[in-house]
């Protein structure tokens, strides 16, 4: 019977697939946690216990944990994480502050879209690292180039998604708004803006990941402080356990912030939640 009640595509889905799809949210978290534990255990076994790989090149989880504790107790972690955090948050705020209004403008006005669009896509398509030498020339060696790279990495996914959201507003809803007497401003507020919200959050999720990449790229090459600087210094002195610990923290931040964006989206835009039947 349950096969008839299941919703969604069910193309050739076997027993495991059906089981995974039917899991409760808590069950999904448990499966994910199990996967992480198994991977860490295998890693520990291959490198730490069996010694198939030289731990200097690829330290086992236990060594990375040690590296983390060293970074923590020496105070290196707190100082550098704070610097990175500051640069990330400032750069991200700039990206949001420019990306949302400019994206709305692009979505509203075709001339603005035609002028800004190609420029935005060009800069977006350029690898971030190419801007790093320029950023150093423009902003010196401090936090400046890091903020710049975070902002320039994060602004385009926000900008382009918001513009696309405005532009792809369902024409039949616009027609309905017009029929029921909405003026230009009311259409903007009641139809265009809400229908852009899911696009904004999609853009923000991409922006979080790209901002973190931009941050690390900037810190790896031009900066005396920050998580990128910790990674490169540790690696240069063969303290790969500390390097891996710093990388892990950056990943945790990146993934954590995308989750925060998703949580905010559920709160701001509850209609985008998957319908449960």
């Amino acid at each position, binding site marked *: 019977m349950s096969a008839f009640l299941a919703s969604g595509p069910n193309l050739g889905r076997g027993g495991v697939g059906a089981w995974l799809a039917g899991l409760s949210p808590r069950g999904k978290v448990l499966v994910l946690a199990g996967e992480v534990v198994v991977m860490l255990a295998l890693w520990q076994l291959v490198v730490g216990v069996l010694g198939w790989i030289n731990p200097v090149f690829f330290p086992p989880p236990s060594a990375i944990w040690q590296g983390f504790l060293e970074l923590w107790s020496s105070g290196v972690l707190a100082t550098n994480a704070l610097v990175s955090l500051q640069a990330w948050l400032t750069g991200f705020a700039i990206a949001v502050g420019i990306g949302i209004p400019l994206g709305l403008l692009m979505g509203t006005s075709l001339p603005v879209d035609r002028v800004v669009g190609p420029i935005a896509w060009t800069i977006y398509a350029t690898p971030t690292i190419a801007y790093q030498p320029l950023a150093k020339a423009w902003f010196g060696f401090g936090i400046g180039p890091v903020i710049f790279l975070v902002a320039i990495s994060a602004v385009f996914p926000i900008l382009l998604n918001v513009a696309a959201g405005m532009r792809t507003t*369902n024409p*039949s*809803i616009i*027609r*309905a*708004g*017009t*029929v*029921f*007497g*909405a003026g230009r401003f*009311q259409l903007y507020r*009641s*139809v265009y803006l*809400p*229908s852009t*919200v899911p696009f904004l959050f999609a853009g923000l999720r991409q922006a979080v990941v790209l901002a973190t990449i931009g941050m690390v790229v900037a810190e790896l090459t031009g900066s005396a402080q920050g998580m990128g600087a910790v990674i490169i210094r540790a690696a240069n002195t063969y303290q790969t356990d500390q390097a891996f610990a710093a990388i892990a923290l950056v990943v945790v931040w990146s993934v954590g912030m995308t989750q925060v964006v998703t949580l905010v989206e559920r709160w701001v*835009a*509850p*209609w985008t939640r998957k*319908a449960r*039947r």
Partner: protein
Amino acid sequence: MTTTIEPTEDEASAPSLISVRGLGVSYDVARTGEKLVAIEGVDLDVREGEFVTVLGPSGCGKTTFMNVIAGLVKPSAGKVLVAGEPVTGPGPDRAVVFQDYALLPWRTVFDNVRFGLEMQKGLKGSGWRDRVQEAVELVGLSGFEHAYPRELSGGMQQRVGLARAIVAEPRILLMDEPLGAVDALTREVMRAEIEKLIAATGKTVLFITHSIEEAILLGDRIVVFKSHPGAVKEVIETGLERPRSERSIQSDPRFLELRDHLWDALQGEATAAAVSK
């Protein structure tokens, strides 16, 4: 074949609520530079309280015709008067039910129905809540006030569309194949409910459909459209007693006579439309 079906003459004595004279709509096709004639030379008078169904094959311009009356499309020729006034845009005297429902996905059922009220009359005072609730109950959606459209079946979504259209108490309901996207069983149920609802509220209805049965079941008069260009082929008075039950009417000789006549009238049109595509 003996038939009593004669095209009806509009009585000059009864004042018409909707008056269409020599209406034509044509578009310039940018790609080819040609002029596309959607409808041409349409004359029609609809009396207050009349239920008029507009029947024709796909692409015959019946939706364009309705959009002109709704104020969404400007005519290229002729004129449309509603209650003696020329139509210059959408107005609170007319409401539209769309084939694809055109609900706002970010609004609950209650707030979607409210939309029909807030744009044209504002929400001043305290009476609006009761009016929205009344409309929700009238279409049988009590208990679903807080559901989002995506959580509802197609039939239920169209009930929301219907409630949104009647909540501001327009004189004219324009329905553009409202049951075209609904499954057959739900369609049958909703036809009966629409008939009952219209009888109770005494609204003037223009109902677009490509179903012969639907046109006969619901209409006081049937306007048959032809294609290329879209124009009125004939107007037929159904002359069937109300209320009409879908079951009993199937064997009514008048129903069968009308169905045969309309089938003959449409077959040529449908073939012509299919060939030209």
